[in-house]
């Protein structure tokens, strides 16, 4: 039992690493097709992937106690940046999300995807679980403040993911069912109030989501086109590079948020089943690591990050198949794009750190 495997010496969890790698390769294959068979696009994505993987391995070297120590500082740092975005942020694609650091632009909300679950795991691990009422209230505030700041940018997708990350940790920490249900009821009761305060254009978006055919030129267009792509793919798919909907340029954002529609069109339901198996494999490995962690912080954080990973998948697939509103969440590890890839990989790095540092901890 005391013997250290190669994986533990390198602080890499091979099953997890293997699953991630397979997904990334699938991603590159689909991006090649979706991007109009442009090999340069694939190269560029591969470079980003490599950077993200290196980031993951580096983070995996940190002992979890070190990560816990950084939770509060990182959380506050992220909050400050979010406030800075309001005043100095760069506008792009209709939202104020980026900070221009001259060398590169970056989205402070990405930090929050990691630092919110870290902060909450750190805070809850301090005392006996399940958390008492007052601590739950504090946790809710810790989640709500960054979520509102991000939603104001407006970046509904990221706000949703940050909230999901926070509440996942709270759920795992054993919040009582009574509290959970009353929070749900409160949320449902808040919806009509929210409706009252919404701008006309926001109301229109919600209505369009409920009936996309009403607005075939506007927001309904994405959903209608992606459903056609998925449905026409059938059980076996049209085959790699043979998807017509995506190649005829009917489908917008086909290498980023709507890449799942391209995947479905070309690989069919069979491909989807396979893809879901790989995702489930990664998730079950993440949850296995969470259960076997030796300290509460690790347990909470590993399961929180894993559940968030699933929320990513679910929201993206729900959106592409027309069951959830179009909020702009990429399909994790498959969609083209660097920022979310790096964040996800660092998340997996943390999970690996929790697992591979187990024996050498004295908590």
């Amino acid at each position: 039992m005391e013997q250290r495997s190669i994986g533990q010496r390198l602080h890499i969890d091979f099953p997890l690493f293997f699953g991630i790698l397979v997904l990334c390769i699938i991603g590159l294959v689909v991006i090649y097709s979706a991007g109009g068979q442009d090999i340069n696009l694939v190269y560029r994505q591969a470079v980003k992937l490599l950077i993200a993987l290196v980031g993951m391995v580096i983070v995996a070297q940190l002992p979890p106690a070190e990560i816990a120590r950084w939770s509060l500082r990182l959380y506050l740092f992220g909050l400050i940046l979010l406030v800075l975005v309001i005043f100095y942020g760069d506008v792009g694609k209709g939202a104020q999300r980026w900070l221009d650091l001259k060398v590169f632009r970056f989205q402070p909300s990405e930090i929050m995807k990691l630092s919110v679950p870290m902060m909450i795991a750190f805070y809850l691990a301090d005392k006996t679980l399940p958390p008492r009422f007052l601590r739950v209230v504090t946790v809710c505030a810790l989640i709500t403040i960054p979520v509102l700041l991000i939603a104001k940018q407006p970046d509904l997708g990221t706000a949703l993911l940050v909230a999901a990350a926070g509440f996942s940790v709270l759920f795992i920490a054993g919040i009582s069912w009574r509290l959970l249900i009353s929070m749900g009821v409160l949320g449902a009761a808040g919806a009509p109030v929210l409706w009252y305060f919404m701008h006309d254009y926001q109301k229109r978006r919600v209505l369009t989501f409920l009936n996309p055919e009403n607005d075939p030129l506007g927001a309904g267009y994405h959903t209608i086109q992606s459903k056609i792509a998925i449905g026409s793919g059938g059980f076996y798919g049209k085959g790699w590079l043979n998807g017509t909907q995506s190649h005829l340029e009917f489908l917008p954002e086909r290498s980023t948020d709507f890449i799942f529609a391209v995947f479905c069109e070309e690989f069919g339901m069979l491909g989807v089943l396979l893809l879901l198996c790989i995702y489930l494999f990664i998730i079950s490995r993440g949850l296995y690591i969470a259960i076997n962690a030796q300290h509460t912080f690790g347990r909470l954080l590993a399961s929180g990050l894993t559940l968030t990973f699933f929320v990513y998948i679910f929201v993206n697939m729900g959106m592409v198949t027309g069951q959830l509103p179009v909020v702009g969440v990429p399909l994790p590890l498959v969609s083209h794009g660097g920022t979310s890839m790096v964040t996800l990989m660092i998340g997996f790095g943390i999970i690996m750190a929790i697992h591979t540092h187990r024996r050498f901890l004295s908590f």
Partner: protein
Amino acid sequence: MAKEFTLKDQDHESNLVARRVYIAAFIILMLVIMIISRIFFLTVLQHEHYTTLSKSNRVKITPIPPIRGLIYSRDGVILAENKPTFSLEVVPEQIDDIDKIIAQLQKIIPIEASDIERFKKLLKKKRRFENVPLRLNLDKEEVALFAVNRHRFPGVDIVAGLNRYYPFAEKLVHTIGYVARIDEDDIKQLNESNYSGTTHIGKLGIEKSYETLLHGEVGYQQVEVNAQGRVIRILDRTAPKPGENIHLTIDLSLQQIAIDALENRRGAIVAMDPRNGDVLSFVSSPGYDPNKFVNGIDSKSYKALLASKDKPLINRVIQGKYPPGSTIKPFMGIVGLENGARTMTDESWCPGWFSLKGHEHRYRDWKKQGHGHTDLHKAIVQSCDVYFYSLAHDLGIDLIYEGLSKFGFGQITGIDIDGENRGLMPSREWKQKAISQPWYPGETLILGIGQGYALTTPMQLAKATASLANKGNIIRPRLVSSTSNSSTNNMITLPSVSENQITVSDNAYWDDVINSMYDVVHGVGGTAWRSGLNAEYKFAGKTGTAQVIGIAQDEEYKKEEIAEEFQDHALFIAFAPVEAPRIAIAIIVENGGGGSKTAAPIARKMLDHFMNNQDLISKG
């Protein structure tokens, strides 16, 4: 249920977490099954349906933007038109290296650095699959050159369109405003479907306030596309509804006369028809070229406009705030008569200054040696300050505030373009709120001659003058008299709005004050007698000279010693013909010196033109 422990219990916690993880795993499984069944529904059960759709999905629905309505002057001249243009547009999604493409395009067609700057700015704001214009206003040769090379540039195309053009540029910019490219703030307000093919939206003036009418309704066409997404043929078409044409009340020839008479000085001129509120001329000088804004002004030119000392971007007619000066006196006269503070024959003694009892401070008259015995008629004709100091003192601030407010001073005029300033009619409450000080009697005195806190916009002054001409009937000014539809030829005339009637106990008050104003231009010793010489019609007027800086007690105002921006503003109000007024005018020339010397001659030129033309029309 979890038992309570006082000490941290690792085993208990790990069990709790494990239990929750199992529950989460179960929920995940359920949701995955949901996804799978949705995919099953789409790919297997609905497969036929979507296959049919995908085969017919060579058909795209694209919006057809409506053609924007035109804007005409009262005399039927086009003031805002749509000119056909060709622009080079790029769909970012279909291009990997935009800089490379631009470099290649530059070998065929000249693309300036400012074009690229504007393009990059738009690129950030637009979605990746939307067209972004790179070069505008291509000439025929450039269009042909690109057409030959088009196959080399997938994702780049020539788009034919209509460009808004304002032939009278800076002469009417403050009235008509301009359209410019739709930005983020606009998107929040507008109906996205109706604007799905539209690139421009009214930003200012008439173009903004009548946006809904001018824009029209979007149409749709179904087009068949080839594998590159290029249109092969049109299958079906729902025509857009073109925007309505707008007919302004502006009389272009009168506008031109007013602009010429102002000789490029800073100032504002408003002429309106007191019978229906039609604004006949609307001059804010200097103006600027709205055509530069239509497709985005480059930052250098914009900064120059912002930095200009003449402040051309300000619409002086509705946003400029000026002390009314002596033009307030006829209105003060009505307020004095109505409140019983004076009768027509009551006289004041004017030694050239006025003092409050027990104070040494002398409020000076513009005429050092004084006007002697002065009644209201003489006080208006010769613009005696002492008479109005004394009248204001007897009335008190509250009655003055109430009386002048009825004429619309310190209030929005309600003209049909945005951005109007209220001006300021001070009161006790206002002063307490704004600067936390009580009202001082001395402030009432200078308010009586239109100085001190009182500020008016030229539009307000014109509206008040019109209501004086109307003997108290207050008409809301308007710039649009009717709209017409180019396809149906339907003309809709907009009704004029009478807001209110100022009632006085004796209608002779109106006649008395108007007679005095008549003698300002036609009488002996009238301050504007020069401007009334040899007129073929009769008009009424009042001069005003508004101080920009205060002059100390023992100092004298010497024009040649004062920098231009501190020289007095010249004002003049007038209406004609005096027996049945058809035009009311308000003129302000910034730092123009005396109202009689600078402002009144402008009014004369406008009235000569207007009255002569009107006579021609009535003679047939």
